[in-house]
């Protein structure tokens, strides 16, 4: 358990930020973060990360959790059920998560600016420039070779430079 706790403490902030880039609802950020680590604990032994690949492994789980959430949210009944928060936040916790969400505002705007790019290109930008992955880690996370990832990064950056009107620098 100590090794998983170390993994949790090292990466819970990044996972929270991952969801804060996708929603402005603190309760939802809390639930999706919790879902991610519940799933991670369940598969840690059978399909756990190799040394040095903990972060890509966790982000792959977070992606699946978010995709499932989107699928559920598209159905009205499930969306209504989601409104009944499973992990009720107190005032301090809500405020802390709201701050985290606020710090990700520019990141959300950046991702929105890349909406016309292929999903893998958007993900490459997010992982390398927002989540701090190395290109090798990001390549493993999105399932392409490091060389292919660099090409995608180059293409996405070029699009950003072309379309940005203010202070986005790469």
């Amino acid at each position, binding site marked *: 358990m100590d*090794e998983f706790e170390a993994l949790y403490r090292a990466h819970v*902030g990044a996972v929270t930020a991952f969801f804060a880039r996708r929603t402005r609802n603190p309760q939802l950020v*809390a639930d999706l973060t*919790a879902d991610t680590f519940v799933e991670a604990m*369940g598969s840690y032994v059978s399909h756990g990360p190799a040394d040095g690949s903990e972060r890509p492994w966790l982000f792959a789980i977070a992606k699946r959790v978010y995709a499932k959430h989107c699928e559920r949210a598209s159905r009205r009944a499930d969306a209504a059920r989601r409104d009944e928060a499973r992990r009720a936040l107190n005032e301090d916790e809500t405020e802390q998560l709201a701050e985290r969400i606020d710090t990700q505002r520019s990141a959300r705007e950046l991702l929105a600016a890349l909406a016309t790019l292929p999903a893998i290109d958007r993900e490459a930008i997010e992982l390398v420039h927002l989540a701090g992955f190395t290109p090798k880690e990001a390549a493993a996370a999105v*399932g392409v*070779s490091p060389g292919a990832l660099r090409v995608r990064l180059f293409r996405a950056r070029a699009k950003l430079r072309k379309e940005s009107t203010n202070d986005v620098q790469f």
Partner: protein
Amino acid sequence: MSSFEERLWSELARDHGEPLASALGRARPTRRLRTRAVLVLGGGAIALAAAAVATLVLTASTTTPAYAVVVNRDGSVTLTLNELLGTRAANARLASLGIRVRIVPREAGCTAKAELAPLGAGALAQRTERRNVESILLAEGALLQQVARPPGHNTAFDGLAVRIHPDVIPRGETVVMTVRLIDNRTGARTSHAIGMSAGLYRNPAPSCLPI
């Protein structure tokens, strides 16, 4: 960590900690056993034809996970297969890691188009400097390397583990590994094993290979 993150950890440890701790305790000895795989080759250096290049034999196991894919520190990947049922999940895991290795069945009626790639110079199955360890070279560098061979074992094995070096798989090509069930008869006894072969194929990699 924020108070939310501290509270979440307390809840995770309380609600899910015991199964994880129990699974970790069970997994440690099993993981060591899984490296006791053996690569069965004809002994010494064997020149490889462009077809199936070697056979790996292992007994099917019902007590360990069907497969495992582990990324090593040097970038290589160790693939462990314990039973045929693990191939689909293993393929999904390899694909998610961007590793061009696919495990396909050998089937009598397979008509999938398959184009073997020419092997690189020096493509040999050979013993490495370490005694009891053998490798299959499919191109420049070792693509498949059997991980460990316990002294004294030569016919019955607990599992299969091969090391794959994804960086040296040529662009546009895929290592295709095949698996099939084999009956081994020793006197009146029959044991079941998984036979495995490997080859380098041009993309798109076939979804099956004929027997």
